[in-house]
């Protein structure tokens, strides 16, 4: 059977540092895969390579059977590979509504209608409202993104990624900076999404990871040291060592 998304000996060096070290991973077409690991383990770098933010030093990425290694970002997004950023990346001076609408418009098309009004793309606007309501951002729709509370900006980050109707969605520490209420809301939403699409979640909150993941991959110094069900990872000796040091 052909893998949905997989990598083949994916590597990335920064000078002398090997941030991603011969990673082979297989990701299913639905479900929630968490990637965990200590700070600097190479989680973000791994996502950056797959989503086309930085080129791989060597190795390949395959998506639905085709080689997508080092393809331009916008093409990957069109194929259904979307992401959020660990460091919030939104359109600061646009309203929340405009932030999501541009993402939806880029997905749905109509960007070359140079003489139409923005309102004329009715489906785009309707979808945008759906997404805002789903994420609980509808009351802030008119606000400029830069004026949102930090936690709400994190939610907006997820909203923008969802507007691309992804088939696989990479979430790089989405709940960092969210209030407990928001974290709860977003994690339930992510769990719900994982029934339809593939979610790859990088997260430091272990309780959250253990409770919502279908499978967990553990990175340490750029390579995979363990992979399995949450219960397996919880008791895995190498994982405990990686997190707590050899004495644990």
């Amino acid at each position, binding site marked *: 059977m052909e893998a949905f998304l997989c990598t083949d000996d994916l590597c990335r060096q920064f000078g002398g540092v090997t941030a991603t070290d011969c990673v082979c991973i297989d990701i299913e077409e639905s479900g929630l895969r968490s990637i965990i690991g200590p700070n600097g383990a190479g989680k973000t770098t791994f996502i950056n390579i797959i989503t086309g933010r930085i080129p791989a030093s060597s190795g390949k990425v395959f998506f639905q059977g085709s080689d997508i290694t080092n393809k331009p970002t916008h093409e990957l997004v069109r194929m259904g590979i979307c992401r959020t950023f660990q460091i919030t990346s939104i359109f600061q001076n646009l309203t929340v509504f405009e932030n999501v609408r541009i993402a939806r418009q880029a997905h749905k098309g109509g960007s*070359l209608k140079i003489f139409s009004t923005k309102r004329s793309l009715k489906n785009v606007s309707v979808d945008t409202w759906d997404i805002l309501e789903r994420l609980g951002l509808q009351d802030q729709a008119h606000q400029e993104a830069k004026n949102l509370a930090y936690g709400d900006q994190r939610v907006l980050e997820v909203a923008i990624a969802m507007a691309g109707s992804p088939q696989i969605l990479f979430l790089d520490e989405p709940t960092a900076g969210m209030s407990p209420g928001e974290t709860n809301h977003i994690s339930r939403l992510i769990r719900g999404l994982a029934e339809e699409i593939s979610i790859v979640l990088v997260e430091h909150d272990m309780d959250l990871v253990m409770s919502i993941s279908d499978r967990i991959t553990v990175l340490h110094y750029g390579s995979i040291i363990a992979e399995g069900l949450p219960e397996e990872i919880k008791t895995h000796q190498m994982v405990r060592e990686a997190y707590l040091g050899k004495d644990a």
Partner: protein
Amino acid sequence: MMSDITSIPGDRPSAAPIKIFGFAAIFLALAILPFVWDNRFYISLITQIMIYGLLAMSLDVLLGYTGLLSFMHNAYLGIGAYMVGLFLIHVSPTSLWLACLVGVIFTGAVALPVGWVQVRTGGLAFALLTLAFGMMFHTIVWKWYSVTGGDDGLMGVPSPDIQLFRWTVGNTGDPTHIYLLTLVVVAICFVLTRRIIRSPFGAVLEAIRENEERAAFVGINVRRYKLYGWMLACILAGIAGALFILYKGYIGPTTMSAFAGAGVLMMVLLGGMGSLWGPLIGAGIFIYIQDYITTMTEHWEIYLGLVVILLVLFMPTGFVGMGSYLKRMRRN
């Protein structure tokens, strides 16, 4: 799910009737002006303001909407102007519209490969490239004596009649006629550009301005849309160039110098970027001050520089920002 699609909030309001009325009023007032005020000098000065206003507005498409800084946008006014002039001199002295069309298409044809290189960069590198290309163009028109007239500039450009459907409505050599032609063309360009900027396409440019990387990560082909924005800006500059040569009957290489390019940038900043109409006001302020100071001293650059420094210090967001500042003051 929203049932009432027509009242979707979060969208910025489209042109209010009051704005359309205001625009029509200004247009009519300017159209009547030469018939009630026979000071040819000022009519001519306003023509120049409108032409540079169009150029500054086109630069605003790049700077204020796409977030790209061009130091020498005047190069594309110059290219358009030289081409229209050369066509009128060597090919057909009477074909006004054909000359303009050739000039604008030629400007686009030059801007396309340049833009192809330009959009591979952003930020400071983009700005430096505009300087590099601009200086090359400046040197070419300056040194290629046999074609451009070199230092002396392109002289003896004929003044064709303005014809509409075989009906002669005026002559570009007449200050009032070229004033009215400029007014109509600039108004059309303003309305069209405003429409384009507020379209879904304009939203893409704004997204690129706000966050180029995020724009790519929502699926926008950033380079391609930057190139579209660049072409729009250059073609508008080419149209300004066509008006320029018809208005002056002459163009010299200084029009394409880096010094002149900085002037256009100042017009945009003085008026306030990201509004389209701000740069038109900025061009008015700049050219009026320049003209006023020139009557008193030949070292006008020094005094204009001082005025610009003061304006930038005390009106950092330009004339447009001043408007919203006053509005806020009144509300409080």
